[in-house]
């Protein structure tokens, strides 16, 4: 009998599969699709994933190399998982090998056997005899620590409390002193909340659809209690012995959700990039083996292989962070839909401000549309007003009306939230004498001044330099900050409200692990306070003491470069508004703008998000943009100013016949970024199929172009941004 041929995928950008012979000494019946193998590749060794075992290869026998070692006894990925990942690779026109390895936790991309992950919890089995650990003081200390926690300690806590504990624990286990234990039930999970009639109706509707694929848009105003609905539904799913996958846009939101889901009678695990490789691997296995009933994670968690899937929830589904912006440019939300469809389980897309795409699908009847229009408990909807900044004397970037309102709310011991989507001290550093502006030499952009760090920082390429003492153009020392970022606004607020704590929340102020939680904790403790932040602050954090919320600069969004800019602005304003008055007091929302008459802004302020969405969808339909058209973007970049455009022109010359609209090549809005010149071609098609047919036929020709070797180029299906 001749040897079987192994068809393998490797993590390479090559769009092909690789044939190998089975490793020596491995019985052929042990080989199954979904296993990993170690193979020689060029002069190195690589990990490969087995796609199929076949009888023959197109390659001549003498060119076939032999795989070295079988890494997994049982397949890591089931046939259904492989199928899903094939679909992902096809849809995003991405090399299969890269997709497969992207879906695996980092430790499994290496040639280590997927050994059973170490348990999460440890406890003492018996106290050590007095003399037993005399010569091992560190082991004795660890045993003493465990003795203080008879319920067991999680690995994460041990990592913090006892660095280097793992080898010591091994010794304790060997001595029979310690053992792995099951996680204890969480101490005091927050109690179930009373459902209002709307929530109850939504829950009833969802519970009736627990069998099979049922996509549902749960549109609930901020504070309407969507999470409680997820929780109740998850309970029902768990009772059927099935698992729940919950996707959230931000790592920062997982602890909050973990805490709420902790009341469920199951193991709840997190899965996001803020965890160590080991933690992620354990969570992945917990999902894979069905040990965790609930998996909560950011977009990459959509690749978690659930053993017994029962429900998929995407919270804040409108959030742009669900889209991966490099490599495999997938949308976690869109893949969640495909996941649910293939798993034949219900999908809930939850948001206070659904994306126009999801609203459109709901309206077309593809999604079941459930609404929660009332705030849970006693909370009432906030009152929203625009503040016309034109001709107003500003204190820093704060108008008199806003200052007066802030004073009123703070005097009553309430909290104020100010939203400003601009980090740093000022977006411009200017020479007062000659007008020179500090610009990043690698980008078509200005440096942002960070005063605390005394650096100029380019927010596009991350380059930083010391703040110059004098103007490089004229030599003057009179350099001045122009414009207001959060750091400068904080300074203004501290001067104006010296007796009120100002809590700044942005990427700079929350760099240290746990600092965001600390600030949020401080805010929840109550008492007058000003919370000042970027979009980090606008996302789903529960801050019940806020009664006044303000958008300091709405014009930023009105002048956005992208067709989605207004949708984002409306979502942000609505989300920020949702922060006001979640407790018992009604909230107030103020929006500072120089364009108080902007039609979509006035629609939003006077009639709310649904009316805005209606109007915005009308504009999208007229323009043939998503969800009425389907987009793909081919981007090319290079240090050479000519190469990207030349490549894209050559690409267009090779483009197959197609009804798809091709726009470009055009320079990106910021043509030069991080020292690279950027051009793009935008593809628009009213229907999806012709677009994908075109790309499938076009890509091999693109890859063969000699000009392609002089640029870095990428394909983005359903791009979030087109600039």
């Amino acid at each position, binding site marked *: 009998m001749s040897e079987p041929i192994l068809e393998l995928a490797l993590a390479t950008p090559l769009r092909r599969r690789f044939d190998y012979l089975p490793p020596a000494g491995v019985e052929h019946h042990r080989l199954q699709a979904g296993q990993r193998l170690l193979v020689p590749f060029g002069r190195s060794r690589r990990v490969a994933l087995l796609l199929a075992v076949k009888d023959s290869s197109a390659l001549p026998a003498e060119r076939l190399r032999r795989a070295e070692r079988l890494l997994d006894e049982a397949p890591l990925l089931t046939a259904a998982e492989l199928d899903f990942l094939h679909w992902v690779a096809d849809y995003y026109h991405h090399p299969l090998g890269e997709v497969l390895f992207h879906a695996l936790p980092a430790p499994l991309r290496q040639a280590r056997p997927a050994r059973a992950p170490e348990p999460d919890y440890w406890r003492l089995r018996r106290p050590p005899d007095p003399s037993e650990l005399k010569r091992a003081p560190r082991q004795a200390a660890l045993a003493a620590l465990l003795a203080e926690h008879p319920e067991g300690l999680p690995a994460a806590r041990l990592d913090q409390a006892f660095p280097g504990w793992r080898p010591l624990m091994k010794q304790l286990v060997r001595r029979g002193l310690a053992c792995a234990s099951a996680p204890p039930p969480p101490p005091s999970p927050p109690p179930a909340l009373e459902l209002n009639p709307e929530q109850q109706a939504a829950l009833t509707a969802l519970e009736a659809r627990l069998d099979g694929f049922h996509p549902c848009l749960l549109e609930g105003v901020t504070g309407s209690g969507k999470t409680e609905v997820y929780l109740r539904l998850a309970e029902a799913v768990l009772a059927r012995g099935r698992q729940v996958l919950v996707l959230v846009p931000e790592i920062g939101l997982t602890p909050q959700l973990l805490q709420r889901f902790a009341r469920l009678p199951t193991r709840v695990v997190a899965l996001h990039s803020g965890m160590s490789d080991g933690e992620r691997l354990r969570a992945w296995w917990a999902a894979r083996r069905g040990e965790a009933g609930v998996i909560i994670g950011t977009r990459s968690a959509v690749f978690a292989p659930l053993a017994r899937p029962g429900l998929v929830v995407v919270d804040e589904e409108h959030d742009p962070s669900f889209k991966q912006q490099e490599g495999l440019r997938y949308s976690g939300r869109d893949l969640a839909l495909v996941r649910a469809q293939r798993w034949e389980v219900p999908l809930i897309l939850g948001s206070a401000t659904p994306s126009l795409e999801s609203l459109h699908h709901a309206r077309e009847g593809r999604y079941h549309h459930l609404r929660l229009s009332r705030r849970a408990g006693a909370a009432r909807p906030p009152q929203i007003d625009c503040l016309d900044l034109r001709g107003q004397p500003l204190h820093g970037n704060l108008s008199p009306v806003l200052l007066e309102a802030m004073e009123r709310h703070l005097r009553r011991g309430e909290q104020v939230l100010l939203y400003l989507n601009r980090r740093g001290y000022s977006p411009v550093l200017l020479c007062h004498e000659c007008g020179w502006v500090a610009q990043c030499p690698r980008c078509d952009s200005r440096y942002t001044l960070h005063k605390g760090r*005394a650096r100029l920082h380019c927010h596009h390429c991350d380059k930083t330099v010391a703040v*110059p003492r004098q103007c490089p153009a004229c030599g003057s*020392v009179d350099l*001045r900050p122009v414009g207001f970022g959060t750091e400068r606004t904080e300074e203004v607020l501290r001067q104006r409200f010296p007796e009120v704590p100002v809590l700044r929340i942005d990427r700079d102020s929350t760099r240290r692990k746990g600092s965001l939680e600390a600030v949020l904790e401080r805010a929840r403790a109550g008492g007058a306070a000003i919370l000042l932040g970027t979009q980090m602050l606008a996302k789903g954090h529960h801050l019940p003491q806020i009664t006044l919320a303000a958008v300091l600069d709405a014009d930023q969004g009105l002048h956005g470069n992208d067709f989605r800019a207004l949708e984002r602005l409306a979502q942000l304003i609505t989300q920020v508004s949702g922060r006001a008055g979640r407790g018992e007091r009604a909230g107030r929302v103020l929006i500072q703008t120089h364009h108080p008459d902007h039609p979509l802004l006035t629609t939003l302020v006077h009639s709310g998000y649904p009316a805005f969405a209606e109007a915005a969808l009308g504009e999208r339909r007229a323009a043939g943009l998503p969800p009425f058209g389907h987009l793909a973007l081919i981007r090319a970049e290079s240090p050479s100013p000519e190469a990207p455009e030349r490549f894209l022109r050559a690409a267009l010359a090779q483009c197959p016949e197609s009804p798809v609209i091709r726009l470009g090549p055009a320079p990106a809005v910021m043509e030069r970024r991080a020292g690279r010149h950027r051009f793009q071609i935008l593809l628009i098609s009213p229907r999806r199929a012709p677009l994908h047919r075109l790309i499938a036929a076009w890509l091999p020709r693109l890859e063969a172009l000699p000009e392609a070797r002089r640029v870095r180029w990428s394909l983005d299906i359903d791009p979030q941004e087109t600039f």
Partner: protein
Amino acid sequence: MPQPLPRAERANRLVLGGRVEAVEPARVTPGGVPIATFLLAHRSHQCEAGLPREAWLRIRVLAAGDLAPRAAALAVGAEVEVEGFLSRSSYRREPTHLALHAHTLRIVERNEPIHEE
């Protein structure tokens, strides 16, 4: 290398005495250089075309670096003598708008109110 300027174009030195009006609090530039400014009111008797006359002007004085704290501490009404150079006051104004950049600052009389005439 840029050509050295002709001698006449390099000359820029001015000594101006007067009373301090409107002192602004010192600020520190993002690059760490302290800057103080004040308005200097100058009034003197001059001779022109063989005839006596009065000269009167107001100019903003800018004191940067080590000089800044001394300038910021000046009281309104103090009589000072400033030696320095002239440069345009702001990129947004005509180059005929000038500021006096101080090299040295001599306090003649600390604090005496301006006598209104």
